[in-house]
């Protein structure tokens, strides 16, 4: 086994769960999360020799994963058409909100509520969604998130704050619909 292969396998063992769960949080679908995980580690393998060590492996792998997730969402949305001559959907997250919600990490009794939460999270801007997910679900600190997103710590704090405010507003609107159904 070459040193490169040994190093790659070590990275895979260390980060496979992190990558898979970041992808799952973004896409809420096991099949898509597996596909993203594969693509991420193929990129890691191909880029390992040129990795310059300016950031840690963890930061580097997180960045690749987030970019893959965002690209996947854009790609799937651009493929989605409701009829042949239809316009491309204006909602970037159309694909996410019409695909089946699937997140095995959520407690069974919370699945319905979590599906609503993720629906609303999917309407946040890319940066707000990233910062919120990394903070709330991955439990990363603001300095870690700022390294990954290559933003200042104050920008990250601002993104998380605006994400929370936006979620509160959108959930408040959803509550009215929720009440009407009852």
């Amino acid at each position, binding site marked *: 086994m070459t040193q490169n292969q040994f190093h790659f*396998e070590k990275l*895979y063992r260390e980060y*496979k*769960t*992190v990558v*898979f*769960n970041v992808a*799952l949080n973004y896409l809420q679908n096991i099949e898509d*999360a*597996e596909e993203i*995980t*594969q693509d991420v*580690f*193929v990129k890691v*393998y*191909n880029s390992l020799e040129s990795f310059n060590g300016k950031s840690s492996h963890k930061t580097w792998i997180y960045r690749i994963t987030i970019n893959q997730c965002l690209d996947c969402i854009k790609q799937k949305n651009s493929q989605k058409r409701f009829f042949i001559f239809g316009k491309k959907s204006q909602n970037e997250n159309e694909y996410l909100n019409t695909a089946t919600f699937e*997140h*095995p*990490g*959520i*407690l069974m009794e*919370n699945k319905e*509520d*979590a599906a*609503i*939460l993720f629906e*609303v999270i999917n309407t946040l801007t890319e940066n707000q969604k990233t910062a919120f997910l990394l903070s*709330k*679900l991955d439990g990363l600190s603001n300095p870690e998130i700022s390294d990954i997103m290559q933003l200042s710590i104050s920008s990250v704090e601002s993104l998380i704050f605006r994400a929370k405010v936006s*979620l*509160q507003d959108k*959930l*408040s609107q959803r*509550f009215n619909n*929720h009440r009407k159904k009852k």
Partner: protein
Amino acid sequence: MERNNWIETILNSTNGLTPVVPSDNLFSKIQAQIKNKNKVSEKIIWLVAASVAVLVVLNCSVLSSKTKKNKTSTTTYFENELNKSNQLYQ
């Protein structure tokens, strides 16, 4: 109050989230994808090399036929000039 409680419940629905371990066969799928990508890139290299070779051959043959035409036209010019006066020296 009911609204706030509901919002709070939704926001806390990810509490107790447990990390999901990907399936064991994922690594072998990754290895297979890496091998396939290497094969595909070799094909591309051969394709590019073949295209370059074809271009070089085409350019050489065009240049060579142009050179022949030039030689032919120079020879024709001298023949015409000689034929006018039938004299080599004037």
